[in-house]
């Protein structure tokens, strides 16, 4: 019971929201219930954080690794729910369903980080994906926006394609080893990497998670989905699933171990291509969500640096990096949601004079963006620095140089947002009032960004401990 507590809580949360949806209700009721349920989910992950054990015929493993990720997922979900607006651009009568899908998706993600069996992984991944496939086009199609349908279709089609690749890879694994249990695979696989089938299978399985994390060449859905989905949906897509995707990527990469230069080269090419593609495309964006989408591709490329060293510190740093990335992104999306109470898309120019309209939001945005850009002393810098150190330890000098050059490219588009928010807008604009809970949330996010950046030791050690439970 305690082992499965967060998942059960989520399931219960979904059901409660579902029953609330049967009755007629108006105003903020659904939203407040959702926030309360989000808090309960977060608490349940906190309560269950020390649990260990296996469930469901060894296909579901609860350990420090999975519980840490569940805690982060729960926290990120709670944050997204807190700063979500009234969902003005989603029809009032389907709000309960929207939250139902949100909780279902998170349920899938939490199950994903605990799954240690290929079919369980597949089912959880699909559970989380299909809920989001529906959430994207839920945005109101009668009014101002029409591209949410295109976004939804793209998301679905690319998702199904990537899932197909992954399923094929899993079948190859099964053909090679005769088992779908990851611990059997861990024992069998390393001796099989002289066979092309093992390499192909691993690459195909990775495809599924590359899609979730938006790594080149599985990134095509990102800009349109980020732009087309409601701000709240984008905030969710940009943060919570990335955590689960990295959790599983680390699990799989740790499972296959160092599998030869083919794998390393492949990951390297993906990393470099993601960084350059993401950063160069982000340079010309006008919509801030689109820009953050492209920057997310570049950041995903950076995460790969930690994986392709095939070493435990590398994995730990990748986890540290993605955790930091989620916090920085939450800070940015908090501001985006706050400046667009009607749920409209935010152009970069709409942030004009944000400093005058709301100093606290402007500070949150500037810290989030500078952290994303990798300027010390924030977590973004430390994460990048650790990953560069890992890669250079393996003598990947070219890779490190290219990655370093990318941080210089990236600074331009982050700066251009800071410029608009801080340095323009002499004319009088209406100020934005932020409710108390948002003020506290933004301060908490800023503090986390700084603390993780200045005192990373504790977090790194913790991440390493969680990974030790994997091996």
């Amino acid at each position, binding site marked *: 019971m305690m082992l499965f507590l967060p998942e059960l809580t989520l399931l219960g949360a979904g059901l409660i929201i579902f029953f609330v949806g049967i009755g007629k209700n108006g105003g903020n009721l659904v939203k407040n219930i959702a926030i309360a349920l989000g808090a309960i989910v977060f608490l349940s992950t906190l309560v269950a954080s020390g649990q260990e054990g296996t469930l469901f015929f060894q296909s579901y493993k609860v350990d420090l690794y999975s519980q840490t990720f569940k805690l982060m997922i729960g926290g990120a979900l709670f944050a997204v729910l807190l700063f979500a607006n009234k969902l003005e651009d989603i029809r009032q009568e389907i709000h309960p369903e929207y939250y139902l899908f949100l909780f279902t998706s998170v349920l899938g993600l939490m199950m994903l980080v605990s799954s240690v069996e290929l079919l369980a992984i597949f089912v959880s991944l699909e559970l989380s994906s299909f809920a989001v496939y529906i959430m994207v086009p839920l945005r109101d199609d009668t009014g101002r926006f029409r591209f949410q349908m295109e976004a939804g279709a793209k998301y679905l089609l690319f998702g199904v394609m990537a899932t197909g690749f992954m399923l094929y890879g899993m079948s190859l694994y099964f053909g090679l080893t005769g088992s779908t249990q990851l611990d059997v695979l861990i024992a069998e696989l390393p001796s099989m990497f002289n066979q092309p089938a093992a390499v192909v299978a691993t690459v195909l399985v990775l495809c599924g998670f590359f899609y979730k994390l938006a790594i080149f060449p599985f990134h095509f859905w990102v800009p349109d989905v980020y732009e087309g989905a409601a701000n709240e949906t984008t905030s969710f897509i940009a943060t919570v699933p990335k955590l689960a995707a990295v959790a599983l990527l680390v699990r799989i990469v740790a499972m296959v171990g160092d599998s030869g230069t083919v794998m390393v080269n492949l990951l390297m090419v993906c990393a470099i291509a993601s960084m350059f593609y993401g950063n160069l495309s982000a340079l010309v964006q006008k919509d801030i969500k689109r820009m953050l989408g492209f920057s997310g591709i570049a950041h995903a490329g950076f995460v790969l640096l930690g994986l392709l060293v095939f070493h435990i510190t590398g994995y730990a740093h990748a986890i540290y990096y993605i955790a930091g990335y989620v916090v920085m992104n939450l800070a940015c999306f908090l501001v985006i949601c706050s400046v667009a109470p009607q749920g409209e898309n935010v152009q970069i120019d709409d942030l004009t004079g944000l400093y005058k309209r709301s100093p606290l939001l402007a500070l949150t945005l500037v810290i989030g963006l500078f952290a994303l850009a990798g300027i*010390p002393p924030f977590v973004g810098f430390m994460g990048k620095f650790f990953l560069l*150190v890992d890669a*250079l330890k393996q003598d990947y000098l070219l890779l490190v140089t290219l990655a370093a050059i990318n*941080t210089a490219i990236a600074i331009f588009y982050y700066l251009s947002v800071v*410029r608009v928010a*801080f340095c323009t807008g002499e004319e009088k604009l209406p100020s934005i009032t932020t409710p108390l809970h948002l003020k506290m949330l933004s301060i908490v996010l800023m503090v986390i960004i700084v603390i993780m950046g200045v005192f990373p030791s504790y977090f790194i050690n913790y991440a390493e401990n969680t990974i030790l439970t994997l091996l």
Partner: protein
Amino acid sequence: MDQLIAYPEFPHLLSILIFLPLLGIVPLLLVNSDTFSRNWTLIITAVVALLSIRLITGFDTSTTQFQFAENYTWIESLNINYQVGMDGISILLFLLTTFIMPFCVLASWSYIKKRVRTFMICLLIMETSMLGVFVALDFILFYILWEAMLIPMYLLIGIWGGPRKIYASIKFFLYTLAGSVLMLVAIIWLYQYNSYSFFIPEMMWGEYSFTAQLLIFIAFFLAFAIKVPMFPFHTWLPAAHVEAPTAGSVILASVLLKMGTYGFLRFALPITPDATFYMAQPILWLSIAGIIYGGLTALAQQDMKKLIAYSSVGHMGFVTLGIFVLNQQGVEGAILQMVNHGITTGALFLCVGMIYERTHSRDLQAASGVGQYMPVFVTFLGFFSLSSLAFPGTNSFVGEFMILAGAFSLDTNQGLFPWLALAAIPGAILAAAYMLRMLQKVVWGGTNNPDQSWLTDLNTREILTLAPFLFFVLWIGLGPQPFIDLMRPSVVALLETLHSHQDTSLAAADVLLR
């Protein structure tokens, strides 16, 4: 860690000096009042300045190790430590920074009218990171502070700057950041090579191959040459100087530019000695190009801030010239000239800021002929202009003279004709030309001066801001020996070790190029 000497009488002196400004932010965050912000920031910076005097009394010139050292574990897994310490190269620059900051606050007293609190917070963050840069002995600590200072400086220019502030601030940020990312790669490479240590003294004089040294040197050179800025990487400087508020210009000129030249001395010379010898000649001639170019461009400016900004390019050219002649007069002159430039150019920017507060123009024509109505102001301006053109008896004369002497002896010691020093001389003449042109315009002007009769002369606060600068101009100009004594042991030790590498390095370069 035997290179570190603690200071038991006052064990955490450096850390207190570094972090006091950062802690000083806390009350500013809590109290939203312009008057309080100004007074509080002045108090904090003044306390730091007074406390830093303790460094002079406690500094031991008989050793070349790092003094006032502190050493704490910071990030254990990567062997990153909080290590700070000070030697003869950094002490003057550290003191210059602590000394400049209160006057930056005074200069912003009435100049900054909007968002005073945020401005003061930016100044305090700047102070912490600048002080840290000069004493950091862990390369990652250095890099973090070096980069972190970009944010407050960007905001100083971007929020309180002039009409083209957005262009200037972004150019400043991009240039400096792009220059230093490759330095990070070099730092990590050095960390690998030195058995996973970021301790800077351990990296010095290492057995690196010549190719590695050359690549590291190029990475360092890009970062530092942009910060100095050396010709042809100087284009961000006039833009940033012109648009920044007075305090921003002063910090830029007095402290930030010194970080580049400090970087050359602290990192490039000891870590890559062979590459330094190999690259010295081209860098010397780049310095000459900067001196001449800065002088000629300054001569053509109508905007007073731009004029001083281009004169900075010339003066910093003298500093890099002094460093890369790689002899004692040259390097000592360079360090002294760093301090001189900080004092003189900082004071000149303060003067221009005072004019700008009254006339709201930096145009030379609009400010012409104020001498009649602002006698105290033009007295100060005259002294600082003379100092800037290296008039004998002022501080810059001593520095430039030592640098030129170093450049002369570089060639004559090898029996060559002193082309290098000869080429630098026109820079000194140009400096006289453009400074006197400005001084003539401002003091007397011409027959068609604008009506300046409504101008009020400097008030007490402004006089108090400028007077200490004048004091140092004359002190260093007439009695520079105490300053040189502070740096001499460290400089001598640096050059001795450097020259012991010279023979091997030239041989290595020969092999590589053959």
